[in-house]
């Protein structure tokens, strides 16, 4: 009985992230356009786009193989599961033992792997540009992310997200320089991974600066819709990750009953709103950088993560 | 009596060393041949003396071989060869005669030094004789490497052999001496024949094909 209830809660979270993701994207766009003194599309626009695309037919390049057609669903599913495993309004959900932080990072890697292959499948130069640059960025972003994971798990003595956020919620954390470094690093990684300014511009189609958009250039119809959904899920995932780790207040733990869940839900939405707003402001005030400056940007993130971990290693003496 | 016997033996041995130095000193071909004849003569005399004092008649054979082959036949044969092949009459030396003599003295000193630790109960042949024969051998080697002519090198080798014969005969009661000396004479005869057959004019190494050897395989 209790098991069924846990599973139910888990699926609630799954549905929640799935439904909230496009909204978050729309909200960020809205804020950005307000900051630019434009009215901008409504926050529900992403939903409309998705449904529009879903109903359109797919135009496939002659050369596209099954990889091209399967990849979107793989990406979407992986992203969905990963997002569902990050605690949003409650920790200690029933599936959370299935994957710890390292596994979640690896899941994102799988999604990227599939998408990069899809970019190469049609055999156009732009797809190649996209994939190779994406892998270059990933080759720096992923270690940086793992270093941050090291930092957190060394602090909490666990790579299990629930334990981490529980620990960081607890009193004995205090204010730590490595935590600050980790936060900065994580934000930088999140920006790079979600193809936001200054690393990449989600709105551009200027050929030579594209990275993520170049990979999915050949996609259309439902495939494109699924990929867009996956992208917004990824953004949501990172925001909720930052939220549950660095501002763990209000997060309920499993089996606390519906009251706690409701509080957690409200806290979660507030966090998303604040995070999205900050992101929009940041993107508005910064300019995109050259592709080969990205390595320096992410190298800095890697260094931050490494220093944070190193500090903890050195401070933890037996 | 015994004293005198040994002294005579020493006299011959020392004389042999002296003649070896004379060989080193020579710078004309024919003079060298004559000196070598003298060398062989001294050897045969000392061998004969040993035969006499050891009451070992078979040693007379060795003495005879030494006398006939090395004191007479070979010098004559070499004389012929020199004339026939028109070999230069002067001896090409690697280093000056003077340095060679000095080196020779050093060698004699070395051989005496080496013989010192030998206990005297080595028998009637005292260290000195052994030292003498050793120095004769070393002087012969020195001659072989300090002369460029084939002939003088052969003569150097034969003086080595004389030194060996001296040691062998003086080693009282050593068996097979005759056989060994015979075997050696064959060796020498072959060498002389070799010089003649191979038409070796000046040096052992006139036809030095390996100076031409160039590496043609794949490099490392």
């Amino acid at each position, binding site marked *: 009985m209790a098991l069924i209830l846990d599973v139910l809660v888990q699926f609630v979270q799954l549905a929640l992230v799935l439904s909230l993701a496009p909204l978050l994207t729309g909200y960020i766009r809205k804020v950005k356009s307000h900051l630019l003194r434009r009215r901008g599309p409504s926050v529900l626009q992403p939903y409309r786009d998705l449904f529009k695309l879903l109903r359109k037919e797919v135009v496939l390049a002659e050369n596209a193989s099954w990889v091209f057609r399967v990849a979107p669903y793989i990406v979407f*599913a992986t992203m969905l599961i990963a997002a569902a495993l990050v605690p949003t309004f409650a920790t200690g959900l029933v599936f959370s033992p299935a994957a710890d932080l390292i596994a979640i990072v690896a899941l994102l890697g799988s999604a990227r792997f599939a998408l990069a292959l899809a970019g190469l*499948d049609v055999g156009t130069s732009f797809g190649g540009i996209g994939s190779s640059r994406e892998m270059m960025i990933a080759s720096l972003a992923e270690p940086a992310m793992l270093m941050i994971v090291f930092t957190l798990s060394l602090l909490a003595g666990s790579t299990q997200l629930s334990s981490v956020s529980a620990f960081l919620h607890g009193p004995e954390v205090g204010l730590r320089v490595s935590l600050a470094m980790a936060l900065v690093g994580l934000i930088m990684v999140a920006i790079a991974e979600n193809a936001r300014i200054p690393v990449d511009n989600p709105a551009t189609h200027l050929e030579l600066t594209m990275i993520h958009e170049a990979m999915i250039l050949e996609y259309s119809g439902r495939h494109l819709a699924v990929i867009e959904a996956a992208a917004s899920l990824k953004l949501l995932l990172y925001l909720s990750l930052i939220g549950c780790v660095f501002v763990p207040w209000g997060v309920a733990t499993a089996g606390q009953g519906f009251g706690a869940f409701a509080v957690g839900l409200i806290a979660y939405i507030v966090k998303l709103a604040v995070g999205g707003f900050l992101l929009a402001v940041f993107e508005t005030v910064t300019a995109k950088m050259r592709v080969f400056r990205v390595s320096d940007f992410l190298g800095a993130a890697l260094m931050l993560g490494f220093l944070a971990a190193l500090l903890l290693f050195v401070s933890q003496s037996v | 009596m015994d004293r005198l016997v040994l002294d005579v033996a020493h006299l011959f041995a020392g004389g042999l060393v002296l003649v070896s130095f004379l060989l080193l000193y020579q710078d004309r071909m024919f003079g060298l041949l004559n000196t070598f004849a003298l060398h062989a003569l001294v050897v045969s005399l000392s061998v004969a003396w040993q035969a006499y004092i050891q009451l070992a008649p078979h040693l007379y054979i060795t003495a005879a071989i030494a006398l006939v082959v090395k004191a007479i036949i070979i010098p004559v044969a070499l004389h012929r060869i020199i004339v026939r092949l028109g070999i230069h009459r002067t001896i090409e030396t690697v280093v000056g005669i003077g340095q060679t003599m000095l080196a020779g003295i050093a060698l004699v000193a070395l051989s005496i030094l080496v013989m010192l630790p030998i206990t005297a109960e080595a028998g009637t042949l005292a260290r000195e004789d052994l030292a003498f024969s050793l120095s004769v051998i070393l002087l012969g080697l020195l001659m072989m490497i300090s002369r460029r002519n084939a002939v003088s090198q052969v003569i150097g080798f034969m003086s080595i052999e004389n030194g060996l014969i001296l040691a062998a005969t003086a080693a009282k009661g050593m068996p097979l001496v005759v056989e060994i000396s015979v075997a050696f004479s064959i060796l020498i005869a072959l060498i002389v024949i070799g010089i003649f057959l191979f038409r070796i004019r000046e040096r052992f190494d006139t036809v030095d094909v390996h100076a031409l050897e160039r590496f043609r395989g794949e490099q490392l």
Partner: protein
Amino acid sequence: MGLTILLSCAGILLGASVAAVLGARSKTTTSLVYAIALVASTVALGTACSILLTDPPAIESVQLPIGLPWLGAHFRLDALSGLFLVVTNLGSAIASLYGLGYGQHEQAPGRVLPFYPAFLAAMNLVVLADDAFTFLLTWEFMSLTSWALVMAHHRHVGNAKAGYIYLLMASFGTLSLLLALGLLAGPGGGYGFDAIRSATAAPGVTAAVLALTLIGAGSKAGLVPLHVWLPLAHPAAPSHVSALMSGVMTKVAVYGFVRIVFDLLGAPGWWWGAVVLTLGGVTAVLGVLYALMQHDLKRLLAYHTVENIGIIFIGLGLALAFQANDMRWAAALALTAALFHVFNHSVFKSLLFFGSGAVLTATGERDMERLGGLIHRMPLTAFAFLVGSTAISALPPFNGFVSEWLTFQAILLSPKLPQWLLKFLVPAVGAMLALSAALAAGCFVKAFGVTFLGRSRSSVAQHAKETDVFSLSAMFALALLCLIAGVVPGYFMDALAPVTHQLIGAQLPPQEHLRWLTIVPIAENRSSYNGLLLFVLIATSAWLAAYLIHFWASQQVRRSAAWDCGFPDASPVTQYTADSFAQPIRRVFGTLAFHAREEVHMPPPGDMRPATFHAHLRDLAWDTLYAPVERFVGSAADRLNRVQSWTIRAYLTLVFGAVVVLLAVLAVWH
């Protein structure tokens, strides 16, 4: 009993190789030899598995009256050798299955068949050997037979040189192992491993032995900077042999290291761990960077082996460090990670080499720049290769991820280590490991994408045919194994427990009874992973999404030309090539790692000459280590060679000098 079976299997294999010499002409010999090899290694595999799974594992040993007269040949079967026998014979069995099909395309079977079974037998015997002489003999015999297999295609440019460098490096390694074991055996000549185990070595001796073992086993496994032979030799061999060399033989080298350092050498010092860790980390990163720069498919795979060896040695180094500080369970975790990676790498590296072999037979090409679009011509091979690529890139839910995950867990335990050097070193190595994992993903996006996806870059690639059923079955068996080991790793980790128990005296908590087959190496609230659940969830949700969309929304598809930002049908030449794919990473890491230089000749407008682009890479290990040695030997040979053309008088002078010198020595000696 088990030992007897294994030895007789090796004997059968040796007999088969002798028979193959006689009947190397006919086609039937090919099938026969591979069939015998398949059967023999399958039997051996079964035996080894049974040994590993019996609890507690029975230790058998036997002494045969061959080899060193007064010593005899000792063979021993324990948990460690059991594990490596499983790895060896699994690889051998599937390679033989593959060979049943692949071997038919062999131009010169006479150069492969006699050596192939002997190679398998040698690898088995190395793992079984229990005295220094037998160990080294079988070890070098393994090198010799694999050398012969590398020389099978000796007419191809570079293969002969590859074989030469390989055999030279192998003998170098064997010599240093020989010195190491000679040190352990001592002047009495106690060559038996049990005698060595019972003896205790002095600290200086242990240091020397560790260094020599690192050189000896490391040169065979491909540790940087001793790796130079590996990317030359492994691709040169026929592909199923490449798979064996890369997937299995390097593991036998790891076995040699583990056997000597963990088993024979006694209690480790903490700095051993530091040394091994550093080597492992450097090897991992450099290996994958080298791999990324290749455009020869098989060479890319070979270089990538170097990376995985680095990962394995990272695990081993951690285990040593923990053991030195008496943190046994942590050491057990690290060792389990390393050994599990040994198994995993042998599986997917063999799979990938099989795939490259299928491509080679279908197109006759190893150069990715002339391949492409093969997924349409050989879909099954492509699928298997894709699974292998995903697994080797350490992506869930496949097996490669699990062992790397365990390694990360071990790294996260290391702050408890007291030594400061380790405190600084371990996170750095962790960063290297993360970096190499990420780069590996990029490397295999390139390998799979350029080879199988896109449009064909040559006519051979256009007219490729799917490979035969034997090869396919071999590949799919391995692909299945990748998935199984990825989703239910608990069983495999439990199978490793006796090994860690034998070597360290501790083992991980048993995994198979946990809820939903989750693996929990340390504690529930610390870390856990469940590949099965992830796999099921992802699969169902992907399928569900696709189903719903096709059912509710749309399912029409229209084929048309690629959009490509509106460029009209560009030729396949405009695709991204292997080199251009690697270019961003070459820009980021290449200048540091191997002095990469890019030369662009762009003719002025109106000039008809084509623009050219050259990327120059240098192997620093070769430049700094091997080239000087080569130069020294060459110059020394040249100098000494003058002696050859001296005159007789000069030679006589040598003799005279020798006499005088010895006499002088004698005079002085008194």
